[in-house]
């Protein structure tokens, strides 16, 4: 979230699309309700009428996988009807930038496409620069080569008629949603988006979100209370685990993972430190060397010196151009490319797309360790459906671990608040925390390396002073994440003794005098104490920022990009949306995105989007793998023979995996219906935690498949009938819920039916609960993130002769 949960109450229009907040983030509806009490409008856009839709003022259905078409139409409406916030767009975004002459877009392809490599040459999307190397601008937005005009042209193709024909949403419903949301372009209004996996889990996942971010920027909703782009995270600490490098391409604090070609710290820093020639762009990532060196000091401590690049060569490197995502891991595992696997705190046999492939891949391992609370489908995959235990060599170890409430530590929520939690109940005997399991594991690995190890330096030199008597110490780790002065130092006129906690990332240095496990969290645990443990209920702005409740990255800034909430003179765009204001030469309110004076002070100011090299937000995104403007492509599996927008049916750079387990079909009579997956309120993720909880199982006991009354009639399926749902990759048995909450779509003149089912069940428990809906989903994904496309695929559904006993 660029904003935070409480801030939803400041919104005038809440669009819930690509998420089902009422069911999967029930508490969020408290803040949605508070906004609605003050007159806000709630819009729910979803293929299925959900518990969220039941509370919405406006509901519109769309076919799964067509969000860019839906939102492209909204952009077209906003631009062609002058509903955008011109001053904001011109000054705070790259709408005014002039795009280089090589850029082009023809029939679904941007300039620079290499069909052999299925890759773009992104240099063809570069901006035109002046003599000083600063992008050229036209603040009137009239130059035909400026981003604004190119964008206007691009989205003029998304007419209501075209959009309706792609999405299956009626033109009347489109108009209602567009008109209502576009009203937040008025300066005294803000609109917010609450999205989740319904947007990310597509071959166009990143572009779904970019499309909405662009709309938010054109309407002037970014950085403002009641606005922003707000990802509802699927687990309470996903934000925290992402910040601390859950993903293969980043180190903690979103530093880049070193590539094999980055063979020295100098090369690494040069490669990954963005540059700007614009004197009023802060280009905050220009500080990358301070953060990367401080990170290395947190990894290797005293062993890392200037002479040995602070231990840079001991960091693991990834091969250039190679991806190591979830999909890649299981593809390689399936191809027997590696032998051992830790499935830690997860249940891939049910959670991963294309579960049959995942389960078969695990059978090719020599060993697997599953660290989990309960018995589950992963630990027991070798005796699951279709498996012959005699033929499976994989040795499986199931280690019991403590729940998050049985230990002390922090959880970072969707709103970027790091909240410290004390230990609740005592752990059961023999159950360890994840931290303690890791400590024991590492100490054993180190012992083995000491005896006989190839390249033992990374292990031997690994900093280990946060472990006390063989135990994980959450406070010591949190302090190291914040960072220390590693020697006496004077920074910004202040002197610090060795061993002092660094007050904030502004004090981090690139010479090895400071450590910080994650620069974004520098300021979270200082000499003033554990900021995440704060529980003060003061709200000085009255806008729900609660600055002394827990701690929020970066530097306790509650709404990021907040200097875009003020005009060029530092006054809030509208007095009713005041979280930050320049008064008597000072910023008052939230922690500003940099303390520089407002834009009207042309000498001393810096542009508000400080994390971007150009200092402005990117409506034109030249860094993405699949193009600078989001474009509608059909999902890998789709119900239409052609993409109405172009000859490119699917995203031309989407990854496609080639094993026999990766079958996929479009417009195949065997799989005529669109399928999607989702979660339910009553179960948590794969249900591993909740299927053992009898009260929750009572509420949602068995896998179901939801379908329209029309489809039920077509297939002779009645409500409550047992059905088989099948795709090119697998099948599940599920109880039919035949309902008016799904309706057939009119797509390109034909009727398209859609079904949906939750992925929270598994064969281990309960015995009659059914299995994971991920047995149906494909292993393809987004070309930028490689998140799987589990939200749109093709299936069939048939009635089974029997009711479940």
């Amino acid at each position, binding site marked *: 979230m660029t904003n935070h949960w409480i801030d939803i109450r400041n919104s005038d229009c809440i669009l819930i699309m690509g998420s089902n907040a009422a069911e999967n983030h029930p508490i969020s509806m408290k803040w949605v309700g508070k906004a609605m009490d003050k007159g806000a409008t709630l819009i729910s856009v979803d293929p299925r009428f959900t518990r969220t*839709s*039941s509370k919405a003022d406006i509901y519109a259905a769309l076919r799964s996988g067509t969000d860019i078409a839906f939102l492209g139409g909204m952009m077209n409406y906003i631009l062609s009807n002058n509903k955008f916030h011109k001053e904001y767009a011109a000054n705070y975004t790259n709408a005014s930038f002039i795009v280089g002459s090589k850029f082009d877009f023809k029939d679904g392809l941007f300039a620079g496409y290499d069909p052999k490599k299925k890759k773009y040459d992104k240099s063809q999307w570069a901006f035109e620069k002046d003599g000083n190397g600063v992008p050229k601008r036209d603040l009137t937005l009239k130059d035909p080569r400026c981003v604004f005009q190119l964008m206007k042209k691009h989205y003029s193709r998304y007419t209501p008629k075209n959009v309706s024909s792609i999405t299956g949403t009626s033109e009347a419903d489109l108009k209602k949603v567009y008109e209502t949301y576009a009203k937040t372009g008025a300066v005294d209004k803000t609109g917010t988006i609450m999205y989740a996996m319904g947007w990310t889990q597509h071959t166009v996942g990143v572009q779904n979100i970019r499309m909405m971010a662009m709309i938010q920027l054109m309407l002037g909703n970014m950085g403002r209370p009641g606005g922003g782009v707000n990802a509802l995270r699927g687990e309470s600490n996903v934000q925290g685990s992402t910040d601390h490098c859950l993903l293969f391409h980043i180190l903690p604090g979103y530093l880049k993972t070193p590539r094999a070609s980055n063979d020295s710290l100098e090369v690494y820093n040069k490669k990954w430190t963005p540059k700007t020639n614009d004197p009023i762009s802060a280009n905050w990532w220009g500080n990358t060397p301070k953060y990367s060196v401080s990170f290395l000091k947190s990894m290797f401590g005293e062993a890392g010196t200037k002479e040995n690049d602070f231990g840079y060569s001991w960091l693991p490197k990834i091969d250039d151009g190679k991806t190591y995502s979830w999909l890649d891991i299981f593809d390689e595992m399936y191809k027997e490319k590696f032998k051992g696997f830790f499935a830690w705190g997860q249940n891939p046999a049910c959670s991963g797309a294309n579960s049959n492939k995942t389960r078969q891949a695990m059978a090719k391992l020599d060993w697997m360790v599953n660290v989990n609370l309960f018995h589950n489908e992963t630990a027991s995959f070798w005796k699951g459906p279709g498996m012959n235990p005699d033929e499976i060599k994989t040795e499986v170890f199931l280690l019991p671990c403590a729940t998050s409430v049985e230990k002390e530590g922090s959880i970072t929520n969707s709103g970027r608040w790091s909240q410290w939690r004390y230990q609740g109940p005592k752990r059961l005997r023999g159950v360890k925390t994840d931290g303690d399991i890791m400590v024991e594991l590492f100490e054993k690995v180190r012992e083995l390396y000491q005896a006989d190890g190839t390249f033992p330096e990374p292990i031997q030199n690994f900093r280990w002073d946060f472990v006390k008597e063989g135990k994980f110490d959450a406070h010591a780790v949190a302090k190291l994440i914040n960072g220390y002065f590693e020697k006496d130092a004077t920074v910004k006129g202040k002197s610090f003794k060795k061993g002092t906690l660094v007050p904030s990332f502004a004090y981090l240095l690139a010479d090895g005098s400071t450590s910080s496990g994650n620069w974004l969290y520098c300021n979270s645990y200082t000499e003033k104490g554990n900021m995440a443990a704060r529980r003060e209920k003061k709200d000085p702005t009255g806008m729900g920022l609660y600055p002394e409740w827990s701690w929020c990255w970066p530097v306790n800034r509650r709404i990021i990009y907040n200097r875009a909430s003020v005009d060029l003179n530092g006054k809030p765009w509208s007095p009713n949306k005041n979280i930050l204001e320049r008064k008597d030469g000072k910023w008052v309110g939230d922690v500003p995105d940099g303390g520089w004076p407002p834009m009207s002070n042309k000498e001393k100011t810096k542009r508000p989007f400080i994390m971007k090299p150009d200092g402005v937000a990117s409506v034109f995104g030249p860094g993405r793998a699949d193009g600078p403007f989001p474009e509608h492509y059909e999902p890998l599996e789709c119900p239409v023979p052609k993409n109405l927008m172009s000859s490119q049916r699917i995203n031309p750079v989407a990854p496609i995996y080639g094993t026999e387990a990766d079958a996929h079909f479009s417009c195949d009579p065997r799989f005529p219906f669109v399928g999607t997956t989702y979660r339910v309120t009553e179960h948590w993720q794969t249900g591993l935690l909740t299927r053992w909880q009898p009260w929750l*199982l009572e509420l949602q006991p068995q896998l179901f498949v939801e379908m329209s009354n029309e489809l039920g009639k077509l297939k002779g399926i009645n409500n*409550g009938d047992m059905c088989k749902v099948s795709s090119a990759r697998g099948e599940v048995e599920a109880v*039919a819920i*035949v309902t*008016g909450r799904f309706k057939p779509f009119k797509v390109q003149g034909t009727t398209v039916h859609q079904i949906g089912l939750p992925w929270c069940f598994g064969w281990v428990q309960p015995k009659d609960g059914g299995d994971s809906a991920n047995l149906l989903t494909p292993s393809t994904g987004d070309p930028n993130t490689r998140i799987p496309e589990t939200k749109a695929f093709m299936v069939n559904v048939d009635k089974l002769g029997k009711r479940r006993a």
Partner: protein
Amino acid sequence: MAGKFFFIDTTRCTACRGCQTACKQYKKHGVTKTKQYGTYQNPPDLDGNTFRLVRFMEHPAKTNSMVWYFFTEACRHCLKPPCKKKADQILKDAIIVKDYGAVLYTKKTKDLEKSFKAIKQACPWSIPTWSKEEDQIVKCNMCYDRVEAGLPTACSKACPTGALNFGEEAEMKKLANEHLKAAKKKFGGKGEILDLEDVRALYLIIDEQMKYRPVA
């Protein structure tokens, strides 16, 4: 103790079923073996383990093509409980009313097994249930032990959206009036508080009652 009331604003309920589950958790109730039978509503009805049940009902509608109503059902704790009137005719004070209004089924109701049907029929909403495990008639007891210790009921404490509220009579009636006014404004004049003069569980609805719960 002053009279206690529930106020339930159905327009705010998202059917998270926190109330239904919190009730079981607090009361350490057992589990009813359920099946998926074509709806989210489970168990199908109130039972010996289920003193509060969220009912799910969907109907076609003009706005947004349909409506999906959620109705968190439990004993209304009537001001003049007909179940007590009926039971008193057979066994005096098997059902008692606390000074703050909780209608409680005592252990004595075990001797009312033969009259259970009549007592259930006396209830306009067929709330009472015969519990084999408890060997008596059961239903929501307004978390009397919590209430007498100054705590809210388990269900109202769990509600995230402000749909299910519990408190003093004046406070709840004020809230009900405010919410009714807001609902009427929002839903084109529709909205009513059910059985305002007769019960301690005030429901705000915006459509015909039969669209929220099947008629008993």
